[in-house]
């Protein structure tokens, strides 16, 4: 689980450090930088695992740098922990102003007080304890397979992260999944058949598929089953609807956009193996407002069930109503820079005393950051 994520010089994030919890909900006006924060995490993951971002919008290096600083380094620092390891990892990497194709300017990985490696400007400051030390300059974290802690850290930062921004066509007849290369459910859910197959074939925990179906039944009481048409070579997901004693089979692609979008979120949350960190961009889009309480319950249950920490962005007061002051982070634009932090102390107190409802931080009293109280006229 990522405890803290610091980003320097990624779009509007000139220097932004955010403490993250089991569940973190980012709120703020449009254009303040919520998506930039989420994209920064996805960018780092793709850079470490694939060498390039999957998202076409993130492939032009010059457009990733702050508009006010067209030539600068870009840095990421993450503090994260992994179940079964007592101390937190800290991973830092700085990309040169020439772009990610020119290696890294600096990189280090620590576990508690122990530094596994540190490189600066193409030289090892702390050499990895190996007989055959890899050449510096390229990111080392994915090139040290013989030290298990390094492999664990690399896995947590690559295949352990899912960044989901499902399109309205998700799981539908014209939905074309394009993204490949990272295990688990792809960011656009294009490989959802394989994800469901992994769930269905998992005999260790049969409750996963039951939980998904039970949640969908609360969304639509007629749903009796959601299964693959074939275990060997699945071509479609079939949704059973029970009316009296008869069952109607519909392909998932025939279901409504809202149902499919809801289901895509469940697949992300229940995929096997689970992600360490799940990021969802505006999950409320296209979903019946009355079902947002159900979706919020699923988000909140995931961390304690070992299905990953959850990071959300939202513009929905109805969804936000289900989260606490501690879980909400305000995103504001200060000049050209994004700032993200806990909501102001008086808003935290107002929420605790139920003088404000969380959703009112998007409507009545827009969320402010803790240390930027109301400015004087």
């Amino acid at each position, binding site marked *: 689980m990522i405890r803290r994520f610091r980003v320097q010089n990624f779009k509007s994030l000139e220097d932004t450090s955010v403490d993250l919890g089991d569940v973190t909900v980012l709120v703020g006006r449009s254009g303040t930088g919520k998506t930039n924060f989420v994209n920064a995490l996805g960018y780092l993951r793709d850079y470490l695992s694939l060498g390039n971002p999957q998202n076409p919008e993130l492939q032009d290096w010059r457009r990733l740098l702050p508009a006010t600083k067209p030539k600068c380094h870009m840095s990421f620092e993450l503090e994260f922990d992994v179940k079964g390891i007592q101390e937190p990892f800290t991973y830092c990497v700085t990309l040169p102003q020439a772009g990610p194709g020119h290696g890294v300017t600096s990189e280090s990985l620590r576990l508690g007080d122990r530094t596994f490696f540190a490189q600066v400007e193409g030289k090892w400051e702390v050499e990895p304890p190996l007989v055959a030390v890899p050449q510096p300059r390229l990111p080392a974290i994915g090139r040290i397979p013989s030290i298990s802690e390094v492999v664990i850290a690399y896995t947590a930062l690559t295949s352990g992260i899912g960044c989901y921004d499902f399109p309205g066509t998700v799981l539908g007849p014209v939905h074309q999944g394009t993204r490949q290369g990272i295990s688990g459910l792809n960011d656009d859910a294009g490989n959802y058949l394989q994800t469901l197959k992994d769930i269905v074939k998992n005999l260790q925990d049969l409750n996963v598929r039951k939980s998904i179906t039970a949640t969908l039944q609360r969304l639509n009481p007629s749903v009796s089953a959601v299964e693959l048409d074939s275990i060997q070579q699945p071509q479609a997901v079939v949704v059973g609807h029970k009316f009296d004693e008869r069952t109607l089979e519909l392909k998932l692609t025939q279901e409504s956009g809202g149902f499919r979008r809801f289901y895509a979120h469940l697949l992300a949350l229940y995929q096997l193996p689970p992600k360490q960190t799940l990021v969802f961009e505006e999950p409320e889009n296209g979903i019946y407002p009355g079902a947002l309480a159900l979706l919020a319950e699923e988000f909140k249950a995931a961390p304690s069930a070992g299905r990953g920490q959850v990071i959300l962005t939202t513009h929905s007061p109805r969804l936000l109503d289900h989260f606490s002051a501690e879980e909400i982070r305000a995103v504001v634009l200060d000049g050209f820079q994004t700032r993200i932090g806990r909501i102001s102390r*008086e*808003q935290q*107190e*107002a929420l605790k*005393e*139920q*003088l*404000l409802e969380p959703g009112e931080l998007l*409507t*009545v*009293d*827009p969320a*402010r950051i803790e240390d930027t*109280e*109301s*400015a*004087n*006229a």
Partner: protein
Amino acid sequence: MKRLVLFVEGDGDASAVPVLVRRLLTELNAWDSLFLDLNPFVVGGVNRLFKDDSGNWLRWLGAAAKRGSIGAVLVVLDGDLRRIRGKPFCAANVARELAQQSKRARAGDLFSVATVFACQEYESWLIAGVESLCGKPLKDGRPGVRPGTQPPGQNLELAPRDAKGWLKRVMESGYNPVRDSALLTEIVDFELIRNRPMRSFRRLESALSTIVGALRNQSHVVSPG
């Protein structure tokens, strides 16, 4: 120095009312006694304040009081309702009722509260000063109100009913409250509004004077009393 918190109706008002109040407070030389909180509560109309036995009104007053150094809450809402809670809408009566209810949140004891209804909408005040807006470009360079535009009738308190729609018709680039109301408020001439029979604007000025007076005397009021 005490904080003045604004309660406004919508997002357009959230940008315009602080500009209006700031200009009026400057005329009152009030900055020795208060500062203006630039984050208004956007309450969405008086009906929402009365919801759940005025529960929202009391909750949000409580939330406003959580902001440090609270001195006063000024409520500026549209008065274009026909009926409220089954009765014909009367701005004075409703303002008085809100004032009374606010005492349950210790208004008058810990901080002042004043309620003002624009008649009909916030834009009615802009229309009352429309000659001062004519032909002037907006701060962002866009053309504003067409030259030669005159206010629609004698009784600007009651007409036009659709003030936003009227402004939309006379502005060269149309009117969007969120985008334009603050820009128009920056340049409208208050003397023109004062020279017209705009009781609601006079009520706003009087409410602000009352608040400033109370803060200077280190006392608290609810207005209308």
